[in-house]
């Protein structure tokens, strides 16, 4: 991550704004009344979750990317506060990208290869 710190912080705010909507959508998916069921656990049954993936899988995938960036960048910023020099900073940046890419791929595979019920 070699971009200017101010640009990266700008992305931190942009992803925060996106998260308000995307995470809001994801949390609403756990409200039992919307699916004519009576408990939170019942919103996690395979039929409902499959339907949610089919209808809004792209939004969940976008949520995963945005949340990963926002969360990992937050941790990265906190780790930078340890001030251990350039090599340390490079390691942190490389780790950021590795974790971000690996988990983004896992999330993509989940949506792209969703098995039928």
């Amino acid at each position, binding site marked *: 991550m070699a971009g200017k710190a101010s640009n990266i912080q700008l992305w931190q705010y942009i992803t925060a704004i996106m998260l308000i909507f995307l995470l809001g959508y994801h949390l609403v998916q756990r409200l039992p009344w919307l699916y004519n069921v009576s408990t939170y656990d019942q919103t996690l049954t395979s039929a409902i979750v499959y339907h949610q993936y089919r209808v809004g899988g792209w939004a969940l995938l976008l949520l995963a990317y945005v949340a990963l960036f926002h969360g990992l960048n937050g941790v990265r910023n906190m780790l930078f506060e*340890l001030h251990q020099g350039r090599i340390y900073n490079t390691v942190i940046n490389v780790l950021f990208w590795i974790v971000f890419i690996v988990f983004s791929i896992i999330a993509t595979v989940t949506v792209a290869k969703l098995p039928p019920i």
Partner: protein
Amino acid sequence: MGSVDKEVELKNRKGFWRESLNPWLVRAKNNPERVAYVLHRVTGFIIIAFLLAHILETDSLVWTQYYPINGLTAWSAWTYIMHVESAWYLKIGEFIVAGSVFFHALNGFRLLLTEFFGVGIGKPVEPKPPYEAPTLSAPQRTWLYIVFVLSIVLWAFSAYLIFG
């Protein structure tokens, strides 16, 4: 960085732990913003840890096709995992994550308004004794109290959903 600069930097560098924990341990009287600052970081850690686990958990629909759990694959494995996660002690974890998400989101929204859009922080003034920052009596302080209250209300609501 030149060798002289490096020397000066090393000379002035504080101890590792003191330097590392400095942003976390600043103590300020009558300053709920500091409380919010530390809570925002703590809840952020909780959420990112959950997020990574959550991505792996939802991907169980795919990876159990190659590595079955108790002979169960795909949606059968999903149902099994959801059954395991309905245990009360794991629900407590879920409850903690829910509280973290609500506080982090609401406080993050306040930070967006104050830091990014620059609203609710008052106008800059000439520093005069007793040197109280105008931001601390600006509308953002009220918003912060609203954040605390709303977080607790939503957290209580999540308890009703999760344990109900």
